């Protein structure tokens, strides 16, 4: 068992396939995605919008059932929500009728457990939210809300943290600050993190590996190693290696888009020049 577990990935995504049955027909969102996420690893998933990133993350969290394939947590198939998995949602997703303390206690309430006060206090201190427990979400900035959401996700001490474009709605300075916070927390806890993002810079800053998905249906196009040492300083992030890697990933995503534009038959005339943002 011990030898086996040393080789067992934390999260094993095996040919994960998801078809949504919608009113306008079946929609293949994920097509045989496979990736092994090792313990204590940070893996980012990037790709054009609508590539099934969120679908993949929902499947990892057990909120979704896959149409085909399997996702294994510590070698056991995920069939429903698991306490070992914490999720940080888009736009914080705090409950607006609860103050911060009550929001962070929410997981414990659902589980019928006593909140681990010392751990929560430690986390709140870690993210710089001491003394904000009585505040309501609307009284806090977007960055602070997302910090609270991170505390809520870590409160049950999950071994895997799934983050679904958590900082997409934040301004770029707050976003960088939050990225540093995630890195710090990771250096602290070594929680396995799966991070979904639009931002290649964010992905490279945070990750050990970056998974690039193709447009619908989502397939794993490439997986890049990000070998830079941690903590990743501004100097490291400004090196040519980082710049090159960013561009390679960008080319993957843009190159993926280009043949699509040519497929559109309605503009055959050479006179028409389309400028796409």
């Amino acid at each position, binding site marked *: 068992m011990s030898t086996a577990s040393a080789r067992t990935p934390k999260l094993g995504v095996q040919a994960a396939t998801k078809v*949504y*049955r*919608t009113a306008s027909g079946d*929609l293949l*969102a994920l097509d045989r995605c496979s990736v092994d996420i090792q313990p204590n690893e940070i893996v980012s998933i990037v790709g054009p919008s609508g590539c099934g990133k*969120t*679908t993949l993350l*929902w499947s990892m*969290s*057990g*909120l*979704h*059932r896959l149409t085909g394939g399997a996702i294994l947590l510590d070698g056991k198939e995920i069939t*429903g*929500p698991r*306490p070992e*998995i914490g*999720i940080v*949602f*888009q*736009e914080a*997703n705090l*409950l*607006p*009728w609860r103050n911060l303390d009550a929001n962070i206690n*929410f*997981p414990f*309430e*659902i*589980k019928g457990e006593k909140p681990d006060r010392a751990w929560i206090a430690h986390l709140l201190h870690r993210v710089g939210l001491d003394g904000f427990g009585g505040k*309501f*979400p*609307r009284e806090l900035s977007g960055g602070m809300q997302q910090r609270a959401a991170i505390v809520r996700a870590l409160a*049950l001490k999950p071994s895997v943290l799934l983050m*679904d*474009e958590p900082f*997409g*709605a934040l301004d770029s300075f707050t976003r960088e600050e939050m990225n540093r916070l995630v890195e710090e927390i990771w250096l602290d806890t070594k929680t396995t993190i799966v991070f979904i993002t639009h931002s290649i810079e964010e992905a490279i800053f945070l990750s050990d590996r970056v998974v690039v998905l193709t447009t619908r249906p989502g397939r794993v196009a490439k997986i890049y190693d990000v070998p830079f040492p941690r903590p990743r300083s501004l100097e490291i992030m400004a090196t040519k290696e980082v710049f090159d890697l960013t561009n390679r990933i960008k080319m993957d995503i843009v190159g993926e888009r280009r043949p699509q534009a040519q497929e559109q038959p309605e503009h055959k005339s050479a006179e028409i020049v389309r400028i796409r943002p």
Partner: protein
Amino acid sequence: MSGDDAIPEFSKAKSGDGREVSLTNLSAFAGGPGIKSGAEVAAILAVAVVIIGGIELALRLFHVPQYIMPPPSSIVYALFDEFPLIAPHLGYTLVELVSGFAIGAVVGLVMAAVITQFPFAEKIVAPYILILVTTPMLALVPLLILRFGFGYTPRVIAVALAAGPMVMINAATGFRRVDSAKIALARSYGASTLQIFWKIRAPMALPMILVGLMIGAIFGLLTAVGAEMVGGGFGLGNRLTSYSSMIQMPQFFAVVLILSTLGILIYVLFFLIGKKWASWET
């Protein structure tokens, strides 16, 4: 929970984030009483004094007969003078209102909570609810009196019938405000359907429930007074018909004053409850 084939689209889930309610439905609360500065209070009082004083002066100056419009001072005098006689009737009306409203509100809330869980059942029930909401329940009072006599029963039933559907449609609107991200959050911790109802759906619905309760209570008051005017020997509605038939206009208007005070109290009550429990919305 069959969220299995719903495409998770958080960033577009704006329709469910609750903010649309504050603008359209809770605007009544938003513009309600609030703490005002001394100057504002003085200005409001001054305008009131000018208007009421002006009416008083005009009525006396032009010798408007009492049976057309009594001056404000005589209305206030009648209110205090006649209050011991009016008080028991106020009590009757309040008993009808409170008991009828309680029955209607509980039935309406339970029905809204159950119906919204089953979209198909909702479609079947919707037209009947619409009929209940749009039909003035006062129309049924003569029938109810025939069946139940002149006592409390027909009036309590009428109040419940008037308040219940109002509570129900508003509460149902609240319960229908599904925020898939918040439900996903609860489900990710393994929440049961019941936990999702009490910890996500119910609090999300609360602002709309309060709006429904307020409208229901006001409709209940209207119906109670109307039913008292139709038949039976007691209640504020009965006072209105009897004072007007005796052309005791100051007393008549004193009762009107009591009724509008009741309406304002209902409004303020739900305003305060909303401020305490649903202020996260605004």
